[in-house]
């Protein structure tokens, strides 16, 4: 059961470098392909990306999820800290708000905090909801992405 005293918790910020080959690997996985020649060239060819109006090789829309698993103890570390029961955990909702692109070579600082904890349902079958909001700030100090994750224990 999520520990309500954790509401407002800010996780230590984490910094990660966006690797060009990691973008390719991720883009291949979500396009269900086997190699980079089969995907949109903006994800591996810098000239093509610039021709299409990008300042470099951009990351796909859901790429930032990787940083959740690479940093700050990953899923297990996060839920342990919040007292969430893995066997009851469901990922209910995910939202991204884009303010700019994340590019290969960027150094991104990720700041995650608990913005809400709600208890619903009946006494004998409670449902607990935890909302995590994360900001992604690039090496120029620009906020490029905000994500909002709704976790539910059922």
């Amino acid at each position, binding site marked *: 059961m999520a520990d309500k005293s954790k509401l407002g918790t800010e996780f230590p910020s984490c910094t990660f470098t966006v690797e060009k080959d*990691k973008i390719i*690997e*991720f883009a*291949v*996985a*979500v*396009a*269900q392909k086997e190699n980079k020649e089969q995907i*949109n*060239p*903006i994800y591996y060819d810098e000239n*093509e990306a610039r021709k*299409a*109006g*990008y300042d470099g090789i*951009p990351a*796909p*829309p*859901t790429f930032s*999820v*990787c940083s*959740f*698993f*690479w940093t700050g103890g*990953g*899923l297990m570390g996060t839920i342990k800290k919040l007292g969430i029961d893995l*066997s009851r955990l*469901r*990922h*209910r*909702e*995910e*939202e*991204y*708000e*884009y303010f700019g*692109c994340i590019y290969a070579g960027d150094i991104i600082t990720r700041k995650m905090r608990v913005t809400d904890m709600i208890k619903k349902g009946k006494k004998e079958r409670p449902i607990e909801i935890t909302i995590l909001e994360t900001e992604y700030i690039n090496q120029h100090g620009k906020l490029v992405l905000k994500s909002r994750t709704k976790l539910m224990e059922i």
Partner: protein
Amino acid sequence: MNVAVKYNNIEVGSEMPEYVCDPLTRTHLVRYAGASGDFNPLHYDQTFVRTIGLKNVIAHGMLIMGIVSEAITSWIGLKNLKKFNVRFLNMTEPMDLDDREKTKDRATIIIKGKVVRKFEENGEQKFECDVTAQDALGSKKLSGYFIATLPS
């Protein structure tokens, strides 16, 4: 890849091009586990899922969201996407390679969308589009919406 769709060519009620994914296999799940770093055994280890009472491994919700993002950006272009929200619904089991039990349909995700609003904000022309993903048997995997800008 240049995007052909223009703000003036879409109306409330316009449909996003339907996108049908390749039937998901366990290989797709493992590739996504590696790419994302999500190594929850729920998504690839048959001996683990049996201990929690499931018959099969299930796809990462975020893989389905990623496939939906591929459908959206192949229509409107990555840089035009401003907001993307999904709510996860039913679980998705991959197909069996021998396909003895006709498992292909449960693993084939069909993505559809419909424009619900056109508006201007901060001098930008934007639209909002509802999206759904369901398998070929009709089971809904997620529903959500996105907001994007487009040139006239």
